[in-house]
């Protein structure tokens, strides 16, 4: 082996070992736990096969509700952040003044913790004196107890998360739009492509890689949505905002259903892989072409 290879190994080995343990070994560990009867305070490694998974999918009403909530949350959040993000990026890219001011404002929520955002939004949604209640009063609309309502709690959380993450998709799309060569747009315009047709036929296809990136990131965020739900509602009222990640935390760390928590975690992980694996393959192809 060449000396150079040995040195490279020395440089990269610490990272490989740490990621090997904290990512790969831990996933295997969680999977192993999910196949046991460890639904007790003390560890119990007796083999249970797929019992925990079967319970989740056939009997566990809470888990069914969580999946439904998550699949209601997901399209609103993903489409909301992507459509608004693309739209705002387009406006920012149209040569407006104070562009950097607007960009800074839109991305500001990304710089603060979801716990902070959660606490702020609880106050905005407060049914007695909250800002939204005051706004509704101006228009003589009935006050809504947003986070205490079976109907409005989930939309309330969706709005707060869209507020948090739209700056992210805006930035991704803005970088994509900036990457389109000006000549391409000019040429398309000369060919008579204007307005919506210009967007549909030229611009949207040319920011496809931004769309893929934004989609993968937003779907992944949806599937593991925990922080803001935990802070704002803890899954309530009556599971109206409960998510698999919330149930996983409660099962594994509060109720000592460790194996069940591990099984929920594996389900979340498997769902994430559905979007992440194809994405990593395309990224891998691109980096190979670069090299």
């Amino acid at each position, binding site marked *: 082996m060449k000396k150079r290879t040995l040195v490279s*190994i020395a440089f990269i080995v610490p*990272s490989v070992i740490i990621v090997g343990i904290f990512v790969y070994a831990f996933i295997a560990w969680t999977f192993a736990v999910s196949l046991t009867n460890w639904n007790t305070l003390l560890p119990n490694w007796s083999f249970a096969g797929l019992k925990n998974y079967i319970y989740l999918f056939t009997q566990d009403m809470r888990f069914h509700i969580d999946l439904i909530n998550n699949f209601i949350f997901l399209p609103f959040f993903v489409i909301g952040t992507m459509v608004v993000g693309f739209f705002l990026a387009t406006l920012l890219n149209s040569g407006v003044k104070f562009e950097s001011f607007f960009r800074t404002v839109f991305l500001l929520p990304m710089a603060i913790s*979801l*716990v*902070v955002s959660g606490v*702020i939004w609880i106050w905005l949604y407060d049914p007695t004196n909250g800002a939204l209640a005051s706004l509704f009063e101006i228009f003589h609309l009935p006050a809504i107890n947003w986070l205490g309502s079976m109907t409005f709690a989930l939309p309330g959380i969706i709005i707060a998360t869209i507020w948090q993450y739209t700056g992210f998709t805006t930035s991704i799309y803005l970088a994509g739009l900036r990457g389109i060569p000006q000549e391409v747009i000019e040429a398309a315009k000369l060919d008579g492509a204007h307005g919506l047709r210009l967007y549909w036929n030229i611009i949207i296809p040319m920011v496809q890689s931004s769309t893929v990136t934004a989609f993968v990131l937003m779907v*992944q965020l949806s599937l593991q949505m925990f922080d803001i739900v935990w802070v704002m509602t803890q899954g309530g009222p009556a599971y109206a905002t409960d998510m698999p990640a919330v149930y996983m935390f409660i099962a594994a760390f509060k109720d000592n259903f460790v194996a069940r928590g591990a099984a929920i975690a594996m389900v979340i992980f498997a769902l994430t892989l559905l979007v992440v694996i194809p994405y990593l393959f395309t990224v891998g192809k691109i*980096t190979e072409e670069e090299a």
Partner: protein
Amino acid sequence: MKISKKVAVYVVLIIATIFFLFPIYMLVITSMKSLQEVNTTSSWSFPTHFDFSGFVTAWNGISQGFVNSFEFTIPAVIFSILLGSLGGFALTKLKFKGSNVIFMFLLFGMFLSYQVVLIPLVKFMAALGLYGNIWSLIITNTAYGIPITTLIFRNFYSSIPTSLIEASQVDGANTFQIYSRIIIPLSIPGIVVASIWQFTNIWNNFLFGLILGSMPNIRPVTVMLNNLNGAMMAQWNTLMAGALITAIPTLIVYLVAGKYFVKGLLGGAVKG
């Protein structure tokens, strides 16, 4: 026609600005009101007189967390940057067989749903005797920062010409000398981007603190803010003051160095 279109663009941008800034406005003004003034129907209005009692109460509740967060965030930022820089250097400038596989191996960690590692994480830290120790948070945040810092430095080092390294090899410098004398000094912009991104992410993290921060002496500020939220029901001035205190370090970093924050964001998102 042209002018009306321009006006429409600005109107939409201003509406978006109000949407994004309004919660921040409420955060700031509410934190400076007395509890009496908060409990009126005019929650939108500017404080009639400034009252900072909310900050005093909030600080009493979360100051320990504020200190704790600095205590584990700064070492974790440093360690994850060091590892990411070494790895990024090896992956780009010392290209070896299988370097792409190693890169994918590390990159996968960026797309991890943390739920799938939480149970082993607690057991592992307990087995090491680190549960309840600040090092559990330092190690955890370092470990899960490696994928993104490696990616940032890999992308950054790709732009440094290889000829520079080859020239110094001809001059007889060994790899460690090349790394410490040539790469590190050139890395400053990469270090700035990675440290801002890592600082923001680690400071803002909630989940690791929630499961590892069982003892108040290591509990992060985000977890303490959430506890304050449970303890101070409807004391909005105190809660907003607490939220503002928690947000201040990352907000300052963002407002001072937003340009680099975006680079970190996109470094992990677009370039892949």
